[in-house]
C-alpha cells in the first residue's frame, strides 16, 4: 500500500502522512492503549471509532502529540515525533477541535476564528498595538483567509456575535472554522457531531466532506455515531478496551465479527 489507493468515489489517496507503530499508552497502572499500529494517508478521511472508554480520545491525543506513548513510535511525515508543545504541533500543520468545545466564550466569532491564524502573525506586540504598516497589512491578509473560511462554513450572520450567545451546533462549527483558519494539512476532529440533532449532523458531515474535497485536507476523526462514520470515512480503525479490533473500509469493518461483538455486546467468560 505504499503508493496509496483510489476511493470508491474516485478520489486519489496519497502516501502515509502519519504512522503509529506499536503504540502503548499507560496512565499509572491503567493501560489506555495497547500495542496499536495504523497509518493515516494523504487526503483521506480516517475515523477512529469504538465504544465508551475504548481509548479513542487518548489515541487522538497521541496523534496530536499531547500524550507521549511509553512504547512505540509516532512518525509524522516519516520523522519520529519528539515531545512537543501545542504551538509546535500547530506549526507542523496539525489543527484540532475538541470534544467539549474550547472557544473563547466572551469573544466574537470573528475574533475566535482569527486566533486560528496566530501562527501566521509575525509582527510584535508593540506594532500590533499601534496597528501601523506591517501589522495592518498582516491583519488584512489573515482576515482574508478567515473570511474565506467564514464564507465556506456559512457563518457570516454570526460574524460579530459573541460565542457565548450561540447554540451548541453553531459553536461546533465555529470551532471547526478556527481549526480551518490555521490551514492545516492534518485536521483532527474529536467527536464533531456529539450532542447534535440529525439536521446539525447532516450539516456538519457536509462541511467535513467539503473541507476534504475543497482543500484536500487529511482528516482524522473520532466519532460515536456509527451511521455518520460509515458514510463519511474512507477507512476506519475500531478500538475496544485499548486494543485495535478492526481496520479497513467501512464495509470491511461493518462485517468484522469482533467489531459486531464489541458494539452489540457478547458474553464475557
Amino acid at each position, binding site marked *: 500500500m505504499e503508493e496509496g489507493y483510489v476511493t470508491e468515489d474516485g478520489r486519489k489517496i496519497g502516501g502515509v502522512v502519519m504512522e503509529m507503530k506499536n503504540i502503548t499508552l499507560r496512565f499509572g497502572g491503567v493501560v489506555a492503549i495497547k500495542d496499536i499500529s495504523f497509518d493515516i494517508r494523504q487526503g483521506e478521511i480516517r475515523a477512529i471509532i469504538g465504544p465508551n472508554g475504548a481509548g479513542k480520545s487518548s489515541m487522538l491525543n497521541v496523534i496530536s502529540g499531547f500524550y507521549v506513548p511509553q512504547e512505540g513510535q509516532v512518525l509524522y511525515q516519516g520523522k519520529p515525533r519528539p515531545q512537543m508543545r501545542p504551538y509546535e504541533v500547530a506549526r507542523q500543520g496539525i489543527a484540532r477541535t475538541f470534544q467539549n468545545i474550547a472557544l473563547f466564550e466572551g469573544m466574537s466569532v470573528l475574533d475566535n476564528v482569527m486566533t486560528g491564524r496566530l501562527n501566521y502573525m509575525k509582527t510584535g506586540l508593540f506594532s500590533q498595538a499601534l496597528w501601523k504598516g506591517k501589522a495592518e497589512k498582516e491583519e488584512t491578509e489573515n482576515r482574508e483567509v478567515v*473570511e474565506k473560511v467564514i464564507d465556506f462554513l456559512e457563518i457570516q450572520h454570526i460574524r460579530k456575535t459573541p460565542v457565548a450567545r450561540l447554540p451548541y451546533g453553531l459553536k461546533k462549527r465555529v470551532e471547526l472554522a478556527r481549526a480551518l483558519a490555521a490551514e492545516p494539512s492534518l485536521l483532527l476532529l474529536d467527536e464533531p457531531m456529539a450532542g447534535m440533532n440529525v439536521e446539525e449532523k447532516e450539516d456538519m458531515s457536509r462541511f467535513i466532506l467539503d473541507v476534504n474535497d475543497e482543500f484536500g485536507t487529511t482528516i482524522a476523526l473520532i466519532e460515536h455515531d456509527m451511521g455518520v462514520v460509515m458514510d463519511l470515512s474512507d477507512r476506519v480503525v475500531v478500538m475496544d478496551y485499548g486494543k485495535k479490533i478492526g481496520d479497513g473500509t467501512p464495509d470491511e469493518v461493518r462485517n468484522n465479527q469482533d467489531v459486531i461483538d464489541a458494539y452489540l455486546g457478547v458474553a464475557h467468560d
Partner: protein
Amino acid sequence: MAQTQSGAAGLQSLSALLERNATEFADQPAYREKEFGIWQCWTWAETAKEIEALALGLINLGVQEGDFIAIIGRNRPYLYWSMVAAQSVGAIPVPVYNDSAAEELAYVLDHCGARYVIAEDQEQVDKVLEIQDQLHDLKHMIYLDPRGMRKYDHHTLHQYSHVQEQGRAAYDEWITDLKERRGKLTYDSTCVMLYTSGTTGKPKGVVLSNRNVVESAKNSADFDGLTRSEDILSYLPMAWVGDFIFSIGQAYWCGFCVNCPESQDTMMTDLREIGPTYFFAPPRVFEGQLTSVMIRMEDAGAMKRKMFHHFLAHAKKVGGDILDGKPVGLMDRLKYKLGDILVYGPLKDTLGYGRIRVGYTAGEAIGPEIFDFYRSLGINLKQLYGQTEATVFITVQPDGEVRADTVGVPAPDVEIRIDDNGEIHYRSPGVFVEYYKNAESTASTKDAEGWVATGDAGFIESDSGHLRIIDRAKDVGKMASGAMFAPKYVENKLKFYPDILEAVLFGNGKDRCVAFINIDLTAVGNWAERNNIAYASYQELAGHPRVLESIRQHVEEVNKSVAADEMLSGCQVHRFVVLHKELDADDGEMTRTRKVRRRIVEEKFNDIITALYDGSEKISTTTEVTYEDGRKGAISATLTIVDAKVVPVTTQQVAAE
C-alpha cells in the same frame, strides 16, 4: 435627459439600456455584493463586460434564440447578469423561486421546456439533477458556486466563470453573432417569463415584453423621481415580478446601484450597512422588524423604555402629518425634532432606514397600525397595488396622499375600471403578453381590448379618487345573515399583534366566523422566557394555556374594533384555535410569497373547522408536513378550542346586492 423618449432613443431592451449605462455612467457602481465581509463593487462598465462574456459563453454553449434559460438562486449580481445575458442572446430568462421543492421546480422547468439552467450552488444543482428524468429538453446546466461539485460529471455541467472564460476566448468567433442577436431585440420581444405563485392551482408563466418592463420602469421612476444615485437592497425572491422591476427594470432605466446581501441571514445587517434610499418590502418584513423592535424595547432599561414610548406616542400624533406636509403646531414640531434626535433617528439607523426617500410595501395589505408606525417616524412608506400580469404597477400612492386604507391612484398610463361585481380591471402598457402555453387562461384574464381582470374586489373613493381593495374577489363572500364576509380585513387586524404571525378567518355562508391563529415564535418565545414558561417545541408553546389566554384577549379586542365597522361587523371571531404548526409554503398552505392559500388550508384542516363549529372543546388531529428536503412526516396534536366574546351587533344587516 434622453431618458424621456424611450422608444425613440432606441432603448428598447435591457441590453440597450446596459449599453447606455456602460457609456454614460461607466464609473458609477452598478452592483455591490457583500462577500468575504467586504462590499465588492462592479461599475456599469465592468458589468457590461461581465455580461458580454457570459453572453458569448452562452452562444458558445449552443444557446439558440427563443431558448428558455431557468435561473435559480438567491439575489446575486451574477444571477442578475445571467438574466440580461440570456436576453441579449435572444433567449428568455425564467427566474425560479430558489426555495421551490423539487416537484414545483419540475413543473416549471418542464412547462417552459428549459434548455439551460443557471443555478447558484450545489443545493440547486442537486435539485435539478434529482428531477432530470422528467426534463427532456434540458441540455446544459451552469453553476455559480463550485463548492462540493468537483466530483460531478461535467459533461453537461459548467462552472459560471468557465463559461465566461470560454466566452472571452471565443470573442472573435461570436461577437458578430451576439451583436446581431442584440440588434434583433425589439420592444415586443420577450424580456422575461415569470411564474406566478398562484394562490390557487398550478403556477402560470407570465410572458412580459420589453415594452412591459421598460415602460413600467420608466413610468414608475418618473412618478417617484428616482435617479441614478439611488441605492437599493435586493433581497426579495428573484422570481418575483417586484424584484425584477426594481432590481433590473428600474435599475437599468435609471442606472442606480443594486446591492446584494451576503446571505439570507445577514439581510438586516446588510440593510443597515447600505442604508438604501429606495426600499421595497412586503408587509411581512415591516411587521417582523416592528415585532423585533418591540421585543427589544421590552428588554431595555426602564428609562429607555419610557423615553421610547413617550416619543413614539408623540410621533403617532404628529409624525404622519409632518411627513404629509400638513400644518402642525410649533411646539409639536419642536418636540418631534427632539424625538428625532433621541429616538426616531437612532431607531431608523438601526433599522437601516436612515437614508430612505421612498419605501413601498406591496404584495399584501399592511396593517394600518404598522403602516402608521413607520410613517410617524418620518419614513416615506407608501403602498402600491400591483400584479405580475401588470408588470407590477396598477395603483400607487403619490407623496402627500398616503393613507393606510387605500392603495393610491392609478399609476401613470394605467386605466382602471370596476365592473358590476366590484372586481377591479385595468389596462396599461405593462399588461402582460400572455400566459405561456395557456391560451385559455390568457383569454379569461385579458379581454380583446387589453383589459385585465385582477380577481380583487374594490372600489374607487369618490372624493379622493383612491382605490380601496376589499379582498380577493373570490374570498369575499356573504354570511348566512347576508352580511359581507371579508376575511382579510379581520386577519390583518389580528396580525398586527406581534405574537400573531398569521390568521385565517372562516365563515363564508355560515352564521358566525371562526379563526385559525399562528403564533409568532420569536415574539411568544421571548415572552415565555421572560415569564419563566418552559416549552420544548413550537407545538407545546402554541398550546400553552397562558398563550391561549393572551391570544383570546387580542381576538376580543379585534372583535370590538370589527364591530365598529358597519359593513363588516358580522365578521367577529366567535371561536378560534391556535394551530400546532406554522402554515408553510413547503406544505402548500402558502404561496412562495407567503400568502395563505385559503382553499388548501380549509381542505387540509377540515376536521378542525368542523370542531370549531360543532361546539367541541378539543380536537385531535394529524397533519402531514413536508421537510425542506422534500421528505414527508406527520405531526399529531390535540388542540384546545377557545371561545371569544363578541360584541352584539344590533343594527346592521347589509342588503345583498
